[in-house]
Structure formats: structure tokens, C-alpha cells
């Protein structure tokens, strides 16, 4: 259940940034999470309410931009959609690839008051 660590990481960022901006509370938080980032969305939602209790995020609306995986084959330069981290190049079958998108795990914006 590393999603709890993730949720607490999000809380820490929100607390720091809200303080920096001299704001009191977050009303909306926008996250960017890739499908290859290793985060189970259901688990994150499961731990979310306990993690944000008594923090600036307690009453915040959470929005997650889910970013789909895209890889680029190192052998033939083909760009392809990735559902799994072990997907190979659909054109040449190579396992050597760079992951262009899908590993994101970011706090994008905070709407504060």
C-alpha cells in the first residue's frame, strides 16, 4: 500500500505551497498520474480521506489527469501506446524502448483561498 506514502507526499506539497502563498485552504487540487507510474487509482482513493484529514486538503476537490503510456522503440524509432511496462514494439518486436509518457506523478495545480 505505497499509495499512502503517495497521498502523504501530495499532502506535504499542498501544505508547503499553501503556506508559501499565504493561503488557508485548498479548494481544488489537480494531479497528473501516468498509467505506468505504479499507482493503483482505487488504492489512492481508498487512503485519500484519511490522508487529508486535518490538512489544507481536507475540503479540496481532487482531479486526476490520467496520462496514457507512450513508448518509443530504440531500435526502429516507432512510437506506440503502452498499456504495460513490458509491452514491446508492435513493429519490430524489440523490448528496448524509452518511455515517453505514462510515468508522471505530479501535483499540477492547487486552487487556494
Amino acid at each position, binding site marked *: *500500500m*505505497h499509495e*499512502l*506514502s*503517495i497521498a*502523504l*507526499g*501530495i499532502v*506535504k*506539497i499542498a*501544505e508547503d*505551497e499553501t503556506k508559501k*502563498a499565504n*493561503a*488557508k*485552504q485548498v*479548494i481544488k487540487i489537480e*494531479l497528473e498520474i501516468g498509467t505506468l507510474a*505504479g499507482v493503483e487509482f482505487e488504492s489512492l482513493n481508498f487512503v485519500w480521506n*484519511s*490522508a487529508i*484529514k*486535518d*490538512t*489544507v486538503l*481536507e*475540503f479540496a476537490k481532487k482531479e486526476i489527469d490520467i496520462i496514457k503510456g507512450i513508448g518509443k522503440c530504440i531500435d526502429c524509432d516507432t512510437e506506440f501506446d503502452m498499456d*504495460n*511496462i*513490458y509491452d*514491446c514494439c508492435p513493429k519490430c518486436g524489440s*523490448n*528496448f524502448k524509452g518511455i515517453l509518457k505514462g510515468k508522471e*506523478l*505530479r*501535483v*499540477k*495545480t*492547487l*486552487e*487556494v*483561498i
Partner: protein
Amino acid sequence: MCGTCGCGTGKNGPIILKPGEEKLEHSHDEHTHEHSHEGHTHTHENEHHHHNDHSHSHDHSHEHKHKVLTIERDILQNNQLLAARNRGYFEAKNIFALNMVSSPGSGKTSILERTLIDLKHEISFYVIEGDQQTMNDANRIDALNIPVVQINTGKGCHLESDMVFEAVRKLEIKDNSILMIENVGNLVCPSMFDLGESKRVVIISTTEGEDKPIKYPDMFHTSDICIINKIDLLPYVKIDVQKLKNYALQVNPNLQFFEVSATTGEGMEAWYGWLKAQSKKVKG
């Protein structure tokens, strides 16, 4: 909320001890969090209370000014910063650090013990043991006269870089050494948490399924070395080692394999050869 034990009080951290040190009480009533975290401050209590001043009266919402802050910050940034700090420390002191990961029961501690026994006269070793509970593994290593620190993560399912940071301070590692960090037995969570290691070693045993690398791809994707343990059991178990390797290579084509038995010692020489070469590289 406490990320370590999930107890909801936000005050209970991991316990980091050398064998023989008195165990601190794990009290949920009087969480005082007295141990120091050099790399970061752990002031859950204050953080949790300073918002209580704010009354949630929405009658005057017209007075509030909404502001959108662009953050673009990595959620694991804190862990990565401390991992980078650990890595810098290791590089400066010529310490070759290994993060050993696997499911529970694949033989991490047995491989570690055998390696320490066979090489301790040639290489200076230090060990950090990660488990949810007990000093058992640290006591096994301590019995070999190797400096060791045990991290008990409580309900936590993986080691994080701040725990290693603190354990490393306790160990007082000499220059030109090898540090073995045995992570919590878990093939999922530790994959996301960089500890500052030089190389990550994933261990799988012949009693596990050959498709494990694609069932738990993140760990194999982030590792550099794959040790296949318990090869002495091959006559008795139904596993195709080549198939296992192919699956692992599909996830991570750069993986380097060692097939060993920590019990009989078979195959350990190749692993030792690699370790020695790495430690020389560090010294060089």
C-alpha cells in the same frame, strides 16, 4: 495520518536500532517522535493543528480570493532529494550500495549471510535490514560480526530514503566499503522508492512462478541485477528458468542474471566476482 503505521495520529515513525539497543516503546497515546530526522523535519503534530484556527464559515465566501497556483512538483520529490543526498554521500566515501528487493521468502537474508561469510575477509561490509517487525535479521547479521542496523517500518511496506539516511548515520560506514540494504519483502511498493543505491538487485527463487517478472513488472523494470535463488531445488520444482529469464528481459532488456543457491553455494562465485569487480570500480 501516519504514513508508517497508518494509525491516524501522524506521530509514529519507523524504529531504527542496532542489535542490543533498547527497544523504544511504540506508544500511540503519547507519540512524541523524539528521534531526529536530520534530512527533514517531522512535525506532524504542529502541522495537524495549525489549521484548526480556521473556521469553515462560508457565509463570507465573497471575501475569499481564489488563486490558482501552478505547482508542477513531483509527488515523490522529497524521497528523491534524500536519495540524491544518500547517493552523494556514498560516492564521496567510495561506498558501493546495493538495494536488495524481492518477495518475502526468496532468500534475501540467506544470500546476504552466505556472501558475508565468504567475502568478509576481503571486503568491508555494512548492512541495513528492513522489516516490518523484529530484530531477527539484524541479529543474524550481527552474529557474523558485521555492523548492522535494523529498520522496523511498522505497518510500512517499503524503505524510504530518509530511513536509510538515518540508518547510515548510525552505521558510521568507513570509506571503500559495500553497503547491503535488504528492503522489506515486497515485490510491489519498494520499486517506487529510490534509496540512493548504486545498484538495485531483485531476487527471485525457483519456487516462484516463472511469469512473476510480468506479474510484478515495476520491480524488474527498475532493477539492474536479477539473482535467481534456490537452483538446488530445480529437480523438484516445475519451473523453466529460461522462460523466467525471457519474461524478465521482456520487462527489462538490460537485466544481468546470476543463478545461485545460497544453501549449497552453487553459482555464488559468479555473483562474488561481480561484487568484487564493482567494489574495485568504486575504489578506482
